[in-house]
């Protein structure tokens, strides 16, 4: 067991769909000798690449779930999280980013920086993940790594610096020039496994020297030593240059750019060298946890294996061997047979089998040190839970989990499907906090909700494939909400006298808008007009009222309820009487408090040729969107807008026909906003109609 944390790398591979990350990962595993044959994502041998462990991914050629895998390169331990590329799976990407120390951002040398890369880059910036860019597919027609590097600067605002130059491009790509060592690098053998270093070809020398100068200029900002050598017109050593690049990368002020073609087996080994040389080790990154015993005070984790254990369960997976929990340790060690505590539930669990994952194969290990990524077997927990040693009570800071914005009703086709469906839903909701499921008691339908149409589509597909649960799917529905806009008083008496003991309770107070948060209950009763024991009954009643608003039957949020008066009866008052009084009071107040409907607003980015900018803006305007801004570079434009989700259904088809298929868009949830009056009236009418039809 190697303990040198300086030689551990926890990295993610993030990119736009189809820029080749699965192929790259496959090559990495091959060169690090974790696998012994290479399969293509859409290969003819039907085996598929190793990282895409789900059937569906193999069929679609895209990566949906992040699988953690381990490999070793030149004495460094590298844990790779393969992250999904579509925004609809944002939680997967964000969860992966949380446990990473560094990342490789892959770009296609033809497609360049696409909207997806912009989103992923934004997420990496949010989690302060240092990154290396890898410009892949340099063998493809139209490859232009210089242009992509420029886009990294312009569109992503990164200080991107090329560390390599290609020797030939497109089908003529032979190898690359390493600007740090000033050597030509070739990749020989059937699968490029033999790296050969040569002198730089004469015809490229001048260009290489110019580019090296440019690179040194940019890199010297991060090292006084390097700056001095350059000023004295000396030749800096490879170590000095590498140290400067590393410092720049770790400070997030420099993004080294590597190039290659994973498919043609070029440049992958050099990328691995760069991962070792420039990306952070666990000790280079400061991670914080919350001390639950000290009012959630922030503490910095130590990375020290001798300290008490803190580990985060960032992913659950039900594999063919049972439930696997992927865990990242932040300090301390996990050993087989240890007892650890889930800080959310307080439950103690015993560590059974401990494995290092390599896609869907595994290697048994006895212990894992700080900073490692491993998987545990048979541990009952939810993703996002923190495990720690018995002696401490901390939680890794909670991950930002977006609220689901879209829902669908699903109905199993037969009894067998019903059983399988509930198994599947149970597992999906444990794995993915943005995927929620519940039964609507009025319609008896099972509702699933998530972050977008594609997000839910994938789960429906998985239900069919992995669980053999055929379901009928209803039309997607937007998750509306209701809230209030002004303060309103209520004073409600619940009275029932139907023989036997009656029911009596009076509750008075007011509702007011709550700027932040969903619900707040304030007890401002003085003099005991409502007996102590019934205060919680009132709270319960108000909370029940939040489930369904009267406008569209959507949940109510953003309400503060204050009770300041009431009365009771010595015999007839009871828990249920006060709950019903609170429900009545809420109803009375809510109607007077200017209730409004809120809808999810999505942040939408459409990119494509500038000639279509007018048409794109028109299409957004028609969808009640607000255009935030446009970005224009040459003949290429990005339009950023905020658009209500309800207006975005079917937008991909519209966009395709508007732009001859040349534009694409991404969207992610931004916020909830009030629905305009005209739309709100329609929604209320539809809800009334729906109620009548029941």
């Amino acid at each position, binding site marked *: 067991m190697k303990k040198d944390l300086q030689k551990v790398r926890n990295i993610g591979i993030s990119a736009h769909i189809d820029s080749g990350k699965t192929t790259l990962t496959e090559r990495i595993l091959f060169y690090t000798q974790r696998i012994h044959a290479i399969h293509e994502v859409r290969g003819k041998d039907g085996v598929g690449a190793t990282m895409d462990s789900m059937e569906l991914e193999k069929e679609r050629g895209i990566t949906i779930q992040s699988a953690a895998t381990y490999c070793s390169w030149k004495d460094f331990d590298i844990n790779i999280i393969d992250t999904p590329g579509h925004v609809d799976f944002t939680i997967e990407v964000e969860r992966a980013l949380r446990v990473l120390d560094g990342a490789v951002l892959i770009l296609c040398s033809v497609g360049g920086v696409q909207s997806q890369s912009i989103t992923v880059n934004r997420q990496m910036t949010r989690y302060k993940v240092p990154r290396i860019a890898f410009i892949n597919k340099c063998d493809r027609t139209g490859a232009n790594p210089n242009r992509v590097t420029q886009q990294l600067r*312009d*569109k992503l*605002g990164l200080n991107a610096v090329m560390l390599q130059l290609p020797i030939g491009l497109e089908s003529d790509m032979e190898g690359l020039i390493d600007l740090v060592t000033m050597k030509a690098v070739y990749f020989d053998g059937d699968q490029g496994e033999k790296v050969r270093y040569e002198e730089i070809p004469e015809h490229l020398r001048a260009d290489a020297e110019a580019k090296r100068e440019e690179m040194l200029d940019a890199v010297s900002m991060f090292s006084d030593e390097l700056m001095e050598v350059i000023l004295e017109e000396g030749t800096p050593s490879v170590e000095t240059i590498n140290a400067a690049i590393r410092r720049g990368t770790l400070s997030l002020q420099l993004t080294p750019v590597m190039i290659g073609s994973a498919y043609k087996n070029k440049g992958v080994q050099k990328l691995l060298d760069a991962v070792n040389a420039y990306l952070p080790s666990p000790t280079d990154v400061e991670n914080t946890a919350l001390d639950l015993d000290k009012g959630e005070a922030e503490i910095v984790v130590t990375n020290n294996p001798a300290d008490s254990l803190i580990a985060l369960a960032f992913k659950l997976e039900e594999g063919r061997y049972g439930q696997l929990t992927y865990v990242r340790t932040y300090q301390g060690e996990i050993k087989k047979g240890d007892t650890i505590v889930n800080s959310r539930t307080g439950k103690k669990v015993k560590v059974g089998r401990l494995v290092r994952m390599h896609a869907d194969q595994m290697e048994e290990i006895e212990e894992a040190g700080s900073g490692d990524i491993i998987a545990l077997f048979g541990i009952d927990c939810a993703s996002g839970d923190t495990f720690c040693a018995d002696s401490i009570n901390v939680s890794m800071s909670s991950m930002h989990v977006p609220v689901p914005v879209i829902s669908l009703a699903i109905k199993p086709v037969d009894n067998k499907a019903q059983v399988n469906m509930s198994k599947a839903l149970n597992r999906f909701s444990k794995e993915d906090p943005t995927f929620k499921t519940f039964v609507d008691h009025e319609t008896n339908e099972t509702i699933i909700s998530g972050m977008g149409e594609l997000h839910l589509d994938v789960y429906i597909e998985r239900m069919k494939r992995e669980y053999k649960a055929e379901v009928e799917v209803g039309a997607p529905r937007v998750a509306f909400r209701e809230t209030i806009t002004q303060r309103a008083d209520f004073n409600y008496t619940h009275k029932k006298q139907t023989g036997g003991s009656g029911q009596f309770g009076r509750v008075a107070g007011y509702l007011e808008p709550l700027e932040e948060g969903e619900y707040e209950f304030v007890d401002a009763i003085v003099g005991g007009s409502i007996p102590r024991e019934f205060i919680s009954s009132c709270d319960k009643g108000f909370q029940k009222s939040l489930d369904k608003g009267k406008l569209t039957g959507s949940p109510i949020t953003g309400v503060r309820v204050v009770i300041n008066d009431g009365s009771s009866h010595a015999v007839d008052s009871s828990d249920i009487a006060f709950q019903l009084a609170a429900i009545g009071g809420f109803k009375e107040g809510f109607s007077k408090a200017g209730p409004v409907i809120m809808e999810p607003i999505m942040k939408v980015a459409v990119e494509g040729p500038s000639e279509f*900018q*007018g048409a794109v*803006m*028109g299409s957004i*305007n028609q969808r009640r969107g*607000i*255009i*935030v*801004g*446009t*970005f*224009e*570079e*040459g003949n290429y434009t*990005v339009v*950023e807008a*905020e658009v209500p989700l309800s207006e975005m259904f079917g937008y991909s088809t519209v966009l395709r026909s508007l732009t001859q298929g040349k534009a694409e868009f991404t969207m992610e949830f931004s916020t909830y*906003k009030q629905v305009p009056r005209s739309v709100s009236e329609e929604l209320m009418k539809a809800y009334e109609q729906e109620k009548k039809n029941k």
Partner: protein
Amino acid sequence: MGYEQLANKNPLRILKIGKEGANELGLIMARAGLGKTALLVQIALDAILLGNRVIHVSIGQSIEKTRTWYDDILRHILQAHSITRPHELIDMVQRHRMIMTFKEASFNRARLEERLNDLIMQDIFKPNCLVIDGFDFEGTDRAAIENIKEMAETMSLQVWFSATCHREDKRFSSAGVPAPCHEVDDLFGTVIVIKPEENKIRLNLIKNRGEVQTTDAGLDLDPTTMMIKKS
């Protein structure tokens, strides 16, 4: 919307900006890093509070960066004045502002006009005010600015520019406008030069709606918040 009251409290009222028929060009000059963008954004927000629609053209900057400027300045405004429904104001500003960013090389009148017409013809956004941040005065000739001035007149737009001047360049126009704008200063109705003084950042008002100013306007930029204040 009724934010005029808020706008009236703005120290910028000393300038005669935001009045009817103010289709003149305005210019803000300073050395790098003294607050040109902050001042432009405050002028844009002032125009918005007075009920105008503003297009913020940012040359060489990202949408996000520009947007952050607005968010920051608006937050300072919200903090300084007690506004009952902050979200309404934030929402209003968003609806009355659009950001257009261009790469240096791709910005010219024809392209800008084409974009503005896209918006106006489809009834998406009809601006009354344009702020252009990052315009390259050193690499442009007089005709290019005249061209934009003409466009502003035909489209009834108030246009504000920012320009970077340099400490070592000692050229000035007779009115006191520094290079690189010293030869085109007659095209601008209002010119403000931001000047650092000991512990202060002064706003030096050189021209106000066509009148050359001889007295001090008494305006500063707060060095920590970059907000305009009376000296």
